[in-house]
């Protein structure tokens, strides 16, 4: 079983309570099962009694996790509790126990998978997983011609659902197109896509042959540092919400904040603490489709953490943005906040 690759995590977490206050699911369901300890206990039972993997209650717990990795980040020894859940999902898939809703989602991702490369230029390739204006704004700012790779998903969705083979297949195609483009840097404003290319692809033996993978926040930071772009003109108070993929998977916390401050925004800390994930299930990619009620509960918690109902939120995560907008909260993407009033130096 794949969970056997994480027995150190099972052993550490099964009797440990030290990060339960940060489990994004547990903080709204208040279930013992929805904590790293709860899930490790379940998986330890399964490790000892593999037939128990078929228990629908156990399967449900694995798919309710947000994979936010806030607990892993908090943990003194950084036990990979999120990685353990991913392995459990792979086991569920491989034993044909996957819930119907999960297979249908994966299938529709596959059906819509049709990567398209447009534009020209040798330097920067922009990878976009949604229709947005980021690439145009960046082109406008840098005067660069860029190539744009438009794709519905990088393989991240099947990967987090436990369908690793499907994810790898998508990754292979995307990597081949990127390499063929001749670009030297891939920039994406999707934290999930960034994490996929930066971390998942190499773990699936995709070698980038010197191509740099950048999230837009670190890329823009470099442009600002090199004085190629000036950020200016705001004096608004905003609350920046960390993306799980940026903060908890890639340690990118400083750059987005620094950029916002350079653009003149006054940043207020959101909520009561800097450790909790407020990304509403971003790292589970499709939590809103699989467990809409759960995400609704997270939105309610989010609202309860706001200083005022009209607070302006900025997030780097397109997923979080979509959920917050759907809930009627005033929210901008990081790029919207930065590029709307930036100028070429």
């Amino acid at each position, binding site marked *: 079983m794949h969970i056997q690759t994480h027995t150190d995590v099972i*052993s*550490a*977490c*099964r*009797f*440990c*309570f*030290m*990060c*339960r*206050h*940060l489990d994004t699911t547990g903080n709204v369901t*208040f*279930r*013992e*099962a929805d*904590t790293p*300890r*709860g899930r490790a*206990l*379940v998986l*330890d*039972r399964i490790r*000892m*009694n593999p037939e128990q993997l078929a*228990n629908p*209650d*156990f399967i*449900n*717990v694995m798919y309710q996790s947000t994979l936010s990795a806030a607990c892993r980040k908090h*943990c*003194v*020894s950084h*036990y990979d509790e999120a990685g353990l859940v991913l392995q459990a999902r792979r086991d569920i898939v491989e034993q044909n126990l996957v819930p119907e809703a999960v297979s249908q989602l994966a299938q529709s991702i596959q059906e819509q998978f049709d990567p398209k490369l447009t534009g020209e230029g040798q330097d920067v390739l922009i990878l976009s997983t949604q229709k947005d204006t980021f690439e145009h704004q960046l082109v406008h700012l840098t005067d660069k011609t860029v190539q744009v790779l438009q794709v519905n998903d990088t393989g991240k969705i099947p990967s987090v659902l436990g369908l690793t083979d499907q994810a790898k297949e998508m990754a292979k195609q995307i990597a081949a197109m990127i390499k063929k483009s001749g670009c030297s840097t891939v920039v994406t404003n999707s934290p999930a896509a960034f994490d996929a290319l930066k971390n998942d692809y190499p773990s699936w033996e995709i070698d980038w042959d010197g191509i740099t993978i950048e999230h837009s926040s670190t890329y823009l930071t470099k442009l600002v540092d090199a004085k190629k772009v000036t950020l200016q003109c705001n004096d608004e108070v905003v609350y920046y919400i960390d993306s799980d993929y940026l903060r908890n998977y890639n340690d990118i916390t400083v750059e987005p904040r620094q950029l916002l401050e350079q653009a003149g925004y006054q940043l207020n800390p959101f909520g*009561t*603490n800097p450790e909790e994930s407020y990304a509403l299930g971003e790292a589970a990619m499709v939590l809103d489709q699989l467990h809409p009620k759960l995400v609704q509960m997270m939105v309610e918690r989010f609202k309860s953490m706001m200083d005022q109902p009209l607070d302006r939120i900025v997030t780097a995560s397109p997923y979080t943005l979509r959920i917050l907008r759907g809930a009627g909260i005033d929210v901008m993407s990081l790029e919207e906040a930065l590029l709307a009033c930036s100028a070429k130096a």
Partner: protein
Amino acid sequence: MLLQTDNYHFEMIHSELKWAVGADNVRTDDADKLGHSIDYYWVPELWHDRNCPPQPPQIIVTPETAQDVAKVMKIANNYKIPVTPWGGGSGSQGGALPIYGGISLDTKKLNKVLEIDEKSLTITAETGCNMQQLEWATEKAGYSTMHFPASIACATLGGFLAHRGTGVLSTKYGKIEDMVMSIEMVTPEGEVINTLPVPRHASGPDLTQMFLGSEGTLGVMTKVTLKIHPIPECRKFHAFLFKNMTSAMAAGSELMTSRLRPAVIRLYDTPETAKLIKKVLGIDREGSYLVFGFDGPEEMVDLEMARACEICRKQNPEDLGTEMGQTWWDNRYKFFYPPYMFHMPQAFGTLDTVATFANIENVYWAMKKVVTENFPQATFIGHFSHWYEWGCMLYARFIIDDPPSDPAEATALYNKIWDMAIRAAMDNGGVINEHHGVGLKLGRMMPELYGNAFDILKRIKKIMDPNNIMNPGKMGFGN
């Protein structure tokens, strides 16, 4: 009455509970039940580790208001179903284990911060609040509860009330029972009651203090008003390494009897200094590590700090300076994370005992003797954690690296060590215990500890819980 889950009677009760508190607040799923079958007590952990069947509740109920709790209690009384309150499950005494099945009443949805009174400096909150979340909310308002237990991230406010818990800064700010103004409680028969609004009065015996420490056997605490404090201007630490524990104890006790007001003192015996302080703080020297800290206005802190250092220097210790004190503070929770914390396959127990300065060292040596002489496979280490004007708490531990693989044999060995060590402590003036509580683990010791006064406690229990449905089998009250 024990519930069978595969019959119509169970379904009747199940649906009655759902009507009472809402379907989303009544759960029977296996994953959650597994979580509720193991708390931080070593024996259920062992049971799980050896793949023995779990002992879960039949139903988990998550009330959202005190009135919900009252409804659950009334239904449970009607059918005489055991109800065991469950907060964070981080108690080490098995107190939250539903050993007779029935209902596990999980308090975590009672999680509202109701009021911060900035005039009186109090906070009113529901008892299912996670302590760290509550502290964060208090800090956001510019104050602190000053309750910093190592389990701050895992335990609920109610769990601390139920166990008379304590935090690192107890020496200055008190244990939880010193912080409480008043409580709201749902009695076993489903009545919602409130204790008097202030803790200092002359209106008869103190009901608040009677319910604190009752570990879910006398009802469910649902709301509490606590004192809160301004964030101190500064907090400073200093550490020394003494030749041995006795000279460190002499310094520590003088620090307290001189009536200085440290926020914290912690003294590690020589073996724990070698084992844990070395592992976590990297101090690799023989001796007994003592750290203390003061907080408040800087001039006062500096003055008290200087006086405290003077007291310590009388014993000629090695001065580790402020940095080694600050490092301890910064790492104070690290000891409790894997792999720093003791863990399976090890068997380990915290022999928490409290005694006066006149007795505390005798308690230490008596426990150590009994453990090491009778159980040569066990290591005994300890530190002195919570200090008062009259004495302190011994946080002794026994550790067995390779306990028997047979769960019954391992449990018997474990219980035997506890019995002998605790009796040795009691024979020398020690009280079990200072903050971990009694629970399932030490219930059998209660009649010995209290003598004939235990009968009074039993009678109170009988009056409040005539059907004995509230956390049966705990605190020595029987089932």
